[in-house]
């Protein structure tokens, strides 16, 4: 039986006295697309930040690729293939588009491959190629989301964590972004853990889903089953 590539075991974490996660357990298998859905403040972003070591887990274990990573420093994780596109995209605003991409490859030394990967990013997102010398902060929201994903891909991730990639974007752009996400998963075999408030979208893209409520996982099932679950339809799909 294959091992999960990413596993959270009973994770507790938070911000000082605020307990944002109260025993979260999640498993992601290699090559899977898994969604976490939940309302505002449920703890989705905190989950991703805890996986990446930005927020320390107070209790529980995070396992990635066969090792426990609780004590691994955050800047080490991208070099191991674990990378996050955080909520709000967090483009370096005063660096150019190209510089943002180059920094995605910060830990890499394979200069030629990096140049090739940048070209590949421009093929995947032609608008970024046109804007390559423009400052990241001047891009539109959709362009920033594309750049954030492209920058993450420059780290050569095995597991990509995506926090609300659809947030604040027009439907047509959202469709484009989700097409790309599917492509990354299908073509490169990248495992994806997707956090979304847009449950419909997330569950269509994912094979399995977790429902998060106030710091706990309240439900876990196949994406189709969740989509057809009357409670979920009522609470998260607006019916």
């Amino acid at each position, binding site marked *: 039986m294959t091992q999960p590539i990413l596993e959270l075991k009973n994770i507790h974490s938070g911000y000082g006295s605020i307990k944002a996660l109260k025993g979260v357990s999640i498993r992601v298998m290699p090559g899977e697309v898994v969604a976490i859905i939940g309302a505002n403040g449920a703890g989705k972003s905190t989950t991703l930040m805890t996986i*990446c070591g*930005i927020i320390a887990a107070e209790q529980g274990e995070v396992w990635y690729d066969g090792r426990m990573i609780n004590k691994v*420093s*955050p*800047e*080490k*994780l*991208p*070099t191991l293939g674990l*990378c*996050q596109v*955080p909520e709000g995209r*967090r483009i*370096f*605003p*005063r*660096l150019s588009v190209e*510089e943002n991409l*180059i*920094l*995605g490859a*910060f*830990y890499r030394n394979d200069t030629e491959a990096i140049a090739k990967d940048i070209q590949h990013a421009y093929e995947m997102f032609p608008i970024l190629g046109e804007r390559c010398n423009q*400052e990241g902060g001047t891009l539109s929201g959709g362009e920033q989301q594309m750049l954030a994903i492209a*920058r993450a891909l*420059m*780290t050569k991730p095995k597991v990509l964590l995506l926090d609300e990639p659809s947030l604040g974007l027009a439907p047509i752009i959202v469709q484009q972004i989700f097409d790309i996400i599917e492509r990354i998963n299908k073509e490169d075999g990248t495992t994806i853990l997707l956090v979304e408030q847009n449950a419909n979208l997330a569950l269509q893209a994912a094979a399995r889903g977790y429902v998060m409520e106030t710091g706990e996982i309240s439900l876990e099932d196949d994406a189709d089953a969740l989509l057809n679950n009357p409670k979920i339809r009522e609470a998260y799909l607006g019916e």
Partner: protein
Amino acid sequence: MEYFIQQLINGLTLGGMYALIALGYTMVYGVIQLINFAHGEFFAAGGYIGAIVLAYFAGVGYMESHPIICLTASFMIAMAYCAYLAIGVEKIAYKPLRKQSRLSALLSALGMSIFLSNGMMLTQGVYDAIYPSELFQGRFDFGMISVSYLQVTIVTLTAALLVGLNILVFKTKIGMAMRATAQDKTMSALVAISSNRIISLTFAIGAGLAASAGIMYGLYYGSVKYDMGFVPGIKAFAAAVLGGIGNITGAMLGGLIIGMVEIFGAGYISGEYKDVFAFIILIAVLYFKPTGIMGENIDDTRV
């Protein structure tokens, strides 16, 4: 006219030194939003290391035969020493306070400044340490204007350091990482950049540049003293604020302006007040345009 040009060259020499010191303030501020009040001490320490190294070379008689090598060595040793000193200061006095209020780090910086300055007094004495005066004695004469070899050397070296820093910060990957760290530390970590390393590097570069200015100061004025970091330190800080704190090009410009104003003020108004001009500028900038000349609106050279 000759007098004017002469003063312009003097202003360039002095302003270049202020620019070199100002960069350390501005870069550290850009990356961790701290005014490193101990920064002037790196300038003084650099001046001392230069004096010690040059005195040693003079003692063994190497100075007359190989002045360029001796000078290069003194710069390299002083810059390296101060770079490591600054890394140590950051680790001991600032890093443990990074999560605390900014005021605690600021007070720690003030304490560090006093500590370092007293350390220099105790180890090096309260009297001036003399720089060898036989270096670069000659002068270029253009009609009525005369420029010493020393001034040419200082201005050239300053220009080279400033250009080098610009290339490092704006053209290399490590420079990009520095700017990225200044802009968003969490995101930098998510692309494998260690902010601790970048912060150390920033302190090292800033202190190295200040150390080079310390040697230039010693060569130019003939001696260094344990408390010499104080006044030029504050003037360079004024330069960094004038340029827009956090902005690299601004610090360079600000340094040159402060140097020029000081020289021309002393020349045309009164020499007695030469130290006052920088403070008048500092207060005026803080009052009328706290973001400085390159701040906020024209902002693509912030770290």
